[in-house]
């Protein structure tokens, strides 16, 4: 099993979620985060003074899938989250040690 973390632009969340549902991904967790990469922050204004805001709001999406689905899921996320403009985000893939369903105690692939 692998864990896929994806940092995406917030307004792309619905598109990514729909695409993942389409290819059979059964569960995702979403959190609101902020961050920056090579996309710079922006300048804000308050009472006559400018100041730099480094962090940009993003959405972090986490999902666990079987190793066989890795390419499918990555392609799906890229296709639905991409705008072509700087700040589209990144995908991180890690091997997952275990996954357990709290209600039933199922482990491993059963619990996905």
């Amino acid at each position, binding site marked *: 099993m692998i864990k896929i973390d994806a940092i995406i632009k917030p307004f792309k969340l619905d598109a990514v979620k729909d695409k993942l549902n389409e290819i059979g991904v059964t569960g995702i967790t979403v959190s*609101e985060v902020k961050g920056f990469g090579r996309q710079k922050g922006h300048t*804000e*204004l*308050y*009472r*006559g*003074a*400018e*100041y730099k805001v480094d962090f940009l709001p993003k959405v972090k999406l986490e999902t666990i899938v079987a190793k066989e689905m890795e390419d499918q899921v990555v392609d799906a996320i890229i296709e639905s989250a991409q705008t072509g403009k700087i700040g589209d985000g990144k995908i991180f893939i890690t091997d997952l040690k275990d996954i357990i369903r709290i209600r039933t105690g199922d482990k491993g692939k059963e619990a996905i």
Partner: protein
Amino acid sequence: MHKLFSIKWVLIALLFGLFAPGEAVAEGEISAGLFTANNVWMMLAAGLVFIMHLGFATLEAGLTQQKNTVNILFKNTYIVCVGIITYAICGFALMYPGDAWIIPGWLGVAKGVTIQTDAAGLTTGYAGGGYTYWTDFLFQAMFAATAATIVSGAVAERIKLGSFMVFTLVYVTFVYTIAGSWKWGAGWLDALGFYDFAGSTLVHSVGGWGALVGAFLLGPRLGKYINGEMRPIPGHNMPLACIGVFLLWLGWFGFNGGSVLSADPALTSRTLMTTCVAAAAGGLGAMFTSWFVSKKPDLSMALNGILAGLVGITAGADQMYMWSSLFIGAIAGIIVVFSVIFIDKIKIDDPVGAISVHLVCGIWGTLAVGIFGDMAGIGQLMKQLTGVVAFGVFCVVTSFVIFGAIKATMGLRVSEEEETMGLDQGEHGMVAYNDFTTRSTH
């Protein structure tokens, strides 16, 4: 037989009208109906000035950080309560000594000290039929507390709660009242011919000087100035700030409208016109000035501009006409933008712009009485300047003394650790927005 319109009842009504008590008035005396109308207006005005405290509370909360919101609201709650009580106990008597001067024209206290009146205070004889003694007290009490709340914005986010409470108690009870007696209490400034219709100097600059001294002695908030460069600390709730300013504008209908001290149609309607024109002009003046200066229009500046216009017209709201009100307001709106930027530049941290709105524009409004309107003239301008300077000296000296004494005894500023974690935690052990979420959970 049942008639809709019986001639018998018409005749009875006519006879009753002819002999109804209270309608026959002596020469020069005011009728009961008019007395009631005047007093009702004055009581309504007192209520409108009262609502300004909600305006100040929400404005200050909106323009400061979330972690200090409980503290800001607590201070504002305290101010209106302590203001009313101290004014009842001795403030009203200090401000309006009548002929009970100790130092004639400068210091006096009305007989009895605490608010009290005989039957005469409830008749048309008291104030020419404008209002009763109690109405007089209440209306003026609302003004007193307003002077204190101006300070709370400038010292926000770093002043110790207890220290602020002590300062407010002393400042409102003694400084506001004694200085106020010089003009409204028929003291030496009044005799001189200085004019302040509703308090550009007596209320707004008094608060403004206290705000300036307080902000200066406290020093800027942590993180405001880093390596000599200013980093803005944006307010956490623009909607609250906006609500606050509109409540203040609404309150000004009573602040200026009630300062006519009767419901006189000609005076009150003209005063409300000048007030609103100045407010609107101030808003537009600040809006476009900030747009020009910063390339983007700043809401908080526009809101300050409305207040600047209101403060600016307050000294002469009954002396101005439409164009004079417009210019006074517009100029105040322009001034306030540059003043906010300037005050920041000289490293005085004023989170809400209180000094710029109330002190700077209070002085402008006071001087404007000598420049525009019915009293315009170099002589009047000199008298206005005298009042400005007199109040300036008195308020700055007393503020320094009071804040200084507090600093030396109980301390003025919270610790760095407390300021960082927020005064809500440090002073109150509370959170303003427990469980508040900004996004839907489903």
